[in-house]
């Protein structure tokens, strides 16, 4: 059974048909990249999975359980972790409080503490900044915090929306190193990226999204070598 399965998803914004039958699967332990240009429907796909937008047709299955019509907080309880677009850091909460909110659904204090120590070992920078307000962090630090917060609930799968957006190139490399490291530690990841080259370099498999349709799917390496992908998304 796939960890995550999208079966013929149709989503709308009002009357605008944004997703026209998206199907994809993510298997346990994989990094799957979803690439595509601006407006192709990448974020809409993530919104349709996470419950912020309910698909009008089709099903989203998380470990076989239909989550298509659940509200976001229930989807999260079912085991879906999200690092939202623009990071979604609570600016008026401290770094530590942001992490605690990531573990909102966990009642066991010892487990929360373990999660925080884990986050600090992954991102020592966050430990230095633990008592600082989230809004005062730099873009890279906010991305670290959003990633660490997404992991706090021990999700079955982590959805990452444009983690490289707005970061300096050196930080982009660092963030992708971190994603690889998380995956090595056992986290299944669905990665949505505009930076197709980086995303495909670390992904096991990839899907190419174009105006609400999946037009191509293959292993990361094959997609990176694919002529159409190279022309359209890699600028080669």
């Amino acid at each position, binding site marked *: 059974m796939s960890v995550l399965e999208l079966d013929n998803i149709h989503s709308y914004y009002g009357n605008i048909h944004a997703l026209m039958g998206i199907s994809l699967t993510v298997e346990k332990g994989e990094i799957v990249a979803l690439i595509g240009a601006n407006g192709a429907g990448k974020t809409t796909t993530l919104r349709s999975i996470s419950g912020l937008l309910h698909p009008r047709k089709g099903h989203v299955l998380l470990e076989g359980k239909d989550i298509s019509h659940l509200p976001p907080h229930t989807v*999260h309880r079912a085991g879906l972790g999200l690092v939202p677009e623009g990071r979604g850091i609570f600016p008026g909460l401290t770094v530590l409080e942001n992490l605690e*909110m990531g573990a909102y659904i966990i009642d066991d204090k010892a487990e929360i503490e373990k999660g925080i120590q884990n986050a600090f070992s992954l991102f020592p920078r966050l430990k230095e900044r633990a008592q600082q307000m989230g809004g005062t962090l730099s873009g890279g630090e906010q991305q670290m915090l959003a990633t660490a917060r997404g992991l706090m609930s021990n999700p079955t799968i982590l959805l990452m929306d444009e983690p490289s957006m707005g970061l300096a190139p050196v930080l982009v490399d660092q963030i992708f190193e971190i994603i690889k490291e998380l995956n090595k530690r056992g986290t299944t990841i669905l990665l949505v990226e505009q930076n197709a080259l980086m995303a495909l370099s670390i992904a096991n498999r990839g899907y190419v999204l174009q105006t609400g349709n999946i037009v191509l799917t293959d292993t990361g390496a094959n997609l990176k070598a694919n002529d159409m992908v190279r022309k359209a998304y890699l600028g080669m």
Partner: protein
Amino acid sequence: MRNIMGTGPAREIIMPIVQMAIFVAGAGALCSVIMIILATLFQGSGADHLLQSTQGVGIFAYTVGNLPQVLIDGMTIGFVYAAIALGYTMVYGVLQFINFAHSEIFAIGAFAGVESLIALNAVGSLAKAGTIGSFGYFGLALLIGMAVAGGTAVFVERVAYRPLRNSPKLVPLISAIGVSFALQDIIRLTESLTTGQFYRVIPTFGNFDDRLTLFTIGSKAIDIQVKSLVVILAAVTMLVALNYLVKATKVGKAIRAVSQDPNTAALLGIGVNGVISLTFLVGGSLGGAAGVMYALKFTRIDPFVGFMPGIKAFAAAVLGGIGNLTGALLGGIVLGMIESFAGAYLGTFTQGAFGAEYKDMVAFLILILVIIFRPNGLLGENLSQKA
């Protein structure tokens, strides 16, 4: 072991007390200094001569002599305003919406508290109660007022605001104004049907009307009514509890998370509707408690009793910076102080041309000036970031 769900619970209890002390001392000192300067300037004026001939004291001595009493009164009413203002500001924080029905939530709390005291009085419990017992009964009335007001606030949100959550901002605002009128008339109808009159007077019991002498300056005793002391202590306790709830508990952090980014909060498993209901419950309870305290201090309440304190508390919330809890506290205290000073000195300084009843005008004038020069309030952040 390090406390992971807070940065030291003791700190969250001591901090707001220190903060309130600073606000009271600061606002009180500022008003006092201005008053003393004015009194110095008015020496030899008509007002000075009038006081000399009628009371035998100069305006300077009169001003300074009354200061302690004015400060105590300002503090008392300031804490009541702060408790109401917190309800406005908390709801604004999570929904970016002004709950204009909050003044009626206050009135409902006042009626629930006073009616339960009247009922206790009718069965003779209040007459038999000793000093401790009467404090207990007042505490009970306070809790009943909080429960009824909090429950009403949650109910109002559920039926009148939640269905309009995704409408343009003006729509729930109109709904709130409608709820406000509806609640006024529900109170009036209920009271006139059951009691034949629509104002109620809190029963006299215990030693709430006694005056405790705090200290004496020369021959003048500075005293405080027991009920003012009760109001101050109850308000401070609740404000500290609220601060603890919001800063140091998991649900409090969830309230702040929802007010900063409701979408992300939902994605992290926080039930946004539940948090909003909780916010109305907490804000409504505080408003209800303020209503019962107001009734204790001013004794007579009617269905429209909420309007003035409500609008002033709203002004206080805006003065401090709407959406900011510390700001509501500061705004309430500042407004209470200004009002108390204006009420005490306006008549004397204008030789009776403006009486104490013009204190509201002074309070609102100062509010307008603050808003003109600091549109985001004294402690407000840039509101455009939230829009």
